[in-house]
């Protein structure tokens, strides 16, 4: 189970690292190689994003990666296939991140059953609030998978508690307003917000949006259990190639 894995791992480390890739960007072979680099560098868990044509909550870097992946022929079938290879080969938990239409088009139950059978442990669906997620939440529960919901600086305490009740594994807290991939000020204000998040749930907290350096990681340590790095590894890969990803991750976890 995701939650117990995170708890156990936290006994050994004071901050875990979750990374993210867009499956099929720039192609599926490179996706596999990037995962390999990340796992070797010591990443604790990973989000695999299935590309969607309308990634409303994503900023320019991930948006571009989604569009290019689709252009290069990334389908949902191929994404599931590669995800299965990944979960077989690497011994850390993998989650899906995608938009609801990808689940809906395939059939929510079918999609979630397939997630289970290929060894994916949970999912983040940023355009699916629990109010719209009845079928999804039931399917996740039936398969003992973790539905992960999002806390934001705008989320009132009462809603945080409601979201926590509908979640499993951990809570994804976004560090600021806006979309992925823009800079974040890691400040005292953020510390206050994370304290509020902590008070509203027993689940571990992951913090994402704008995390990209060891200094950011050092700030997060003590405030959250997991740091999430998304857009920055895509930038590193685009700038310096797939081989540079491992070195970059190593600087974060050093």
């Amino acid at each position, binding site marked *: 189970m995701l939650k117990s894995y995170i708890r156990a791992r936290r006994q050994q480390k004071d901050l875990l690292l979750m990374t993210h890739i867009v499956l099929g960007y720039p192609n599926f072979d490179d996706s596999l190689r990037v995962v390999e680099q990340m796992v070797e560098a010591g990443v604790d868990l990973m989000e695999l994003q299935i590309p969607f044509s309308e990634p409303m909550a994503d900023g320019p870097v991930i948006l*571009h990666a989604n569009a290019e992946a689709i252009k290069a022929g990334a389908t949902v079938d191929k994404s599931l296939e590669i995800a299965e290879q990944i979960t077989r080969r690497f011994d850390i938990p993998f989650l899906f991140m995608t938009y609801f239409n990808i689940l809906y088009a395939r059939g929510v139950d079918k999609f979630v059953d397939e997630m289970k059978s290929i060894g994916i442990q949970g999912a983040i669906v940023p355009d699916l609030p629990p109010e719209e997620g009845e079928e999804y939440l039931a399917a996740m529960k039936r398969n003992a998978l973790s539905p992960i919901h999002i806390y934001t600086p705008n989320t009132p305490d009462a809603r945080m508690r409601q979201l926590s009740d509908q979640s499993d594994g951990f809570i994804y807290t976004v560090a600021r307003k806006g*979309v992925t991939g823009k800079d974040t000020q890691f400040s005292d204000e953020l510390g206050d917000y994370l304290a509020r998040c902590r008070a509203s749930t027993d689940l571990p907290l992951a913090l994402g949006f704008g995390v990209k350096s060891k200094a950011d990681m050092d700030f997060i340590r003590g405030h959250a259990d997991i740091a999430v790095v998304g857009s920055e590894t895509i930038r590193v890969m685009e700038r310096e190639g797939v081989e540079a990803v491992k070195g970059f991750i190593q600087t974060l976890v050093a």
Partner: protein
Amino acid sequence: MKYSGYHGRFGGAFIPEILVPTFDELEAAYLEAKADPAFWQEYEQLMSTYSCRATPITYAENLTKYFGGAQIYIKREDLNHTGAHKANNVMGQGLLTKRMGKKRVIAETGAGQHGVATATMAAKFGFDCTIYMGAVDVARQRPNVFWMEQMGATVVAVEDGSATLKDAINEAFRDWVTNMDDTHYVLGTACGPYPFPDMVSWLQSIIGKEAREQMLERTGQLPSRCYACVGGGSNAMGLFGGFFEDESVQLVGVEAGGHGRGIGQHAVRLAYDDATVGVAQGYKTYFLQNTDGQMQETHSVSAGLDYVGVSPILAALHESKRVRFEAATDAEVVEAMQLTVRKEGLIPALETSHGFAQAFKEAPEMSKDEIILINQSGRADKDIFTVADAIDDPKWKEFIIRKAEEYKRA
């Protein structure tokens, strides 16, 4: 939110968590305004002094004679300030923005009509304004971009995806998830997450309310058929809203048939069976998508109808068969527009002309006692470049070449 915003199995609010409190606030403001007669009074007052409400109904005598069937009447939304029905929704949302105490508005635009209307409202009410517009549309609707910028709006050309309306909507949402505290997103059509489809339809219902009264007063009877073009569906919802209770009135929504059948060739979500039910841009409806759920390219000669989704309320009315959906092709549309210009001296926008094209197909087969009503959602000033291309007008080309040479020399 208090309500889920479903119409049959369509609608809902598939919104990112960060916008949940913003939607709570918007729904509350909308429900409060709807329950407050003073709001509608203020809205009507504003529209009768700043725009041209009530817009008249014109009897198209020459077209009626030409087709020799039903009597053709036209609801003149083109006489609104900025030249389209978009002004109704925008001024209404402007009043709501004031009520919510916000200082900045953003909007997506396809044809640019909604962008111009929003920029106008922002200038009048003193709001900052940013308009998102697909780069393809910026290229084909330059006159509207020019006016938006003159009114002080920032126009952002969106290069992502297909660089049309849907991509402009995504980009507006990306702005909103960052700036919701002081910013209202003035969505331009009866789509998107609840409460937008309901709220926009409510504000546009001013068209149908007026039209029903005007028809009874002028002709002593209700029209047997009403026609409106359908992009997102706001002008159609506006006109049809006056006639839902009148079972004898057939309501006909006309979508963009583009080059004809086949996915990628058109923007027909309901009249053809190329679209399937999905969830995108925050709501559930019929989308032009592939089996994976990826949105597909659409095509229409009119930027304002070139959209992958359609109002969830219209999708429900399609399933309940209260509204009939048809498609008109680019060629039919340009022809219908030229005929209307020639016979009546009216200049329907390319979007609007879809409704005319379908009405012209049906009018000759109807009896002379019957009346049809077409919604002229907008005028075609903005379309002058596209129409000149479509009819290949040599004098226009000469003019543009001369103008370009002048600019080159300057």
